[in-house]
């Protein structure tokens, strides 16, 4: 089984990189951005769908990772590869902080407190002009330095290389998430979500697992933030406003929580709708608002999960 997945992943990467050579830059750019946002949505779903913690300020965690990396590379002149572990360590630290707050509050309060944190971090990005560049943000952020392998040099100036790199990171994170969810830790997460008292009774340290879940989700969000800032090479606070935290939640709910592929499906679906409606850029939040209202009214489980169920019943009917 495992060997099959490795081979499948390998061929997927090879075929995607082959196809990507013939696609225009614009499409590559859009798909790469979709992949970055879907990493964010996936990390939110690990928290919401598997541990049952509703974090309404998740985009700001991405923002913390992105801004940390940008500040380190710009102000200290360090390489982007060096900034990656620092940025991820800081977002993981934020995750532990979130976990500590979450231990002391009930579900509802945790959601509101994280929402408030998200908005406040956004205001900090906007107002701390000496460090974050204020409303205009930071620009001219360096790309990662080229990697020299024995035969080829991987140069991150070309968009094709970036595209393949982001796809590989996304696949690795999906693989890691599936492994995590099916491991013992993942099962404890789900048990905490369904019944905290039961989890305690079975001997799991609920406090530890809640903090661990927050830390893992923020770890992945930090990677997404790092990709975001070095792919775009400029950054502005508007990308991490509280609308975007909800945007991540909308992607997750559109695809369906309790599944790894659901958030990715949701991100690709909703962002494609945005691109089709590109001339109406300014009202895209309005469009996503209406779509998600309809979806949670009529398909509360999410589109991806519902479709999967439909296919399953269809298959069974065909067998009969």
């Amino acid at each position, binding site marked *: 089984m495992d060997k099959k997945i490795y081979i499948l992943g390998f061929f997927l990467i090879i075929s995607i990189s082959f196809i990507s050579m013939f696609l225009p830059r614009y499409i590559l750019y859009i798909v790469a951005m979709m992949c970055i946002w879907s990493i964010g949505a996936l990390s939110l779903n690990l928290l*919401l769908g598997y541990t049952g913690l*509703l974090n*309404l300020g998740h985009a700001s965690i991405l923002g913390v990772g992105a801004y940390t990396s940008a500040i380190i590379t710009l102000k200290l002149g360090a390489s982007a590869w060096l900034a990656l572990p620092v940025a991820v360590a800081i977002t993981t630290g934020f995750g532990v*902080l979130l976990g*500590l*707050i979450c231990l*002391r*509050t*009930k*579900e*509802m*309060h945790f*959601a*509101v*407190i994280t*929402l*408030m*944190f998200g*908005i*406040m*971090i956004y*205001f*900090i990005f906007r*107002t*701390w*002009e000496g460090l974050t560049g204020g409303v205009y943000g930071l620009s001219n952020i360096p790309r990662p330095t080229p990697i020299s392998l024995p035969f080829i040099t991987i140069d991150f100036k070309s968009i094709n290389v970036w595209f393949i790199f982001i796809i590989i990171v996304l696949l690795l994170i999906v693989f890691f998430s599936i492994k995590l969810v099916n491991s013992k830790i993942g099962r404890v997460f789900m048990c905490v979500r369904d019944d905290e008292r039961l989890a305690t009774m079975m001997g799991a340290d609920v406090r530890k697992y809640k903090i661990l879940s927050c830390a893992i989700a923020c770890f992945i969000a930090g990677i997404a933030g790092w990709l975001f800032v070095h792919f775009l090479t400029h950054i502005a606070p508007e990308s991490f*406003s*509280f*609308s975007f935290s*909800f945007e991540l*939640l*909308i992607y997750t*709910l559109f695809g369906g*929580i309790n599944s790894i592929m659901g958030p990715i499906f949701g991100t690709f679906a909703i962002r494609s709708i945005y691109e089709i409606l590109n001339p109406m850029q300014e*009202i895209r*939040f*309005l469009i*996503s*608002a*209406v779509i*998600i*209202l309809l979806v*949670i*009214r009529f398909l*509360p489980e999410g589109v991806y999960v519902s479709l999967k169920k439909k296919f399953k019943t269809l298959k069974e009917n065909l067998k009969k």
Partner: protein
Amino acid sequence: MLQVLVNGLSFGGLYLLFALGLVATYFVLKVPWFAHATLILLGGYFTYVFVNLGLNFWIAAIISMVLCPILAFLFERYFLRPFYRLTHAQFFVAIFSFYTIMQYSAYKIWGISNKGVGTFSSAIFSIGDIRITGETVIIISISLVAIVAMWLFLKKTRSGKAIRAVSQDSDAASVLGISIGSTRGITFLISGVFAGLAGSLFIGVHSINPFIADYIIIKIFIVVILSGFGNLLGTLVAAYGLGISESFIAYYLSSGLKDVFLFFFIIIFLLIRPRGIFEVKGRKERG
């Protein structure tokens, strides 16, 4: 020094009026109905429209205090009702969608530029070298009257008692013959009145644009979280405390980094007392 205090009090009064409407709906919804911020925004815009039609500011404010409750009531009855049975995440997203829809409708109708109606009271009182504007006096007195009225309503009237009963345990309340639907309707009417009032006073003092709702929402959240979710005394203390501490931080430390300092204070506060200043005991959580 005292001047800074007076400025802080003026902001505190506004924050109190902002938060009261949300506190009213929190009693029955158990989820912060933060689309309230856009209702405040619409309240301000209604006042703007009627003042531009040539009406007196106070008459325009009263009209907006009639229109906002109607809007809130209709929203609750025809749009929010199908979403009560959902999980927290879905309910939050539903509220956020309403928030976005209202905000962008305001953006489409009135544009992004700042709109103001001019001051509603140009009187200035001087005590020693402190200058107190008539606006400050009016805002503080209205906010105090509003919170006392709300308290009397909850304690003395029949529907107030119904709201408190639903807030403590909605199942038991419905067994005792209290209609949950009409109680929800009444709370949304009340929150609409507060939204109209707060919006009118806000546009009378400052100017508004559609994205000011994001600022309003953060102030409401800080007040509601610090007050311990739906405690009236806590709301009073938290709103004035926030206003005063903001104006002191801006005056003595740095006005640009006001939010940063406030953020760290609130993190530390929440780690020490996560359930607010005055904890509400014996109330069931939603869900």
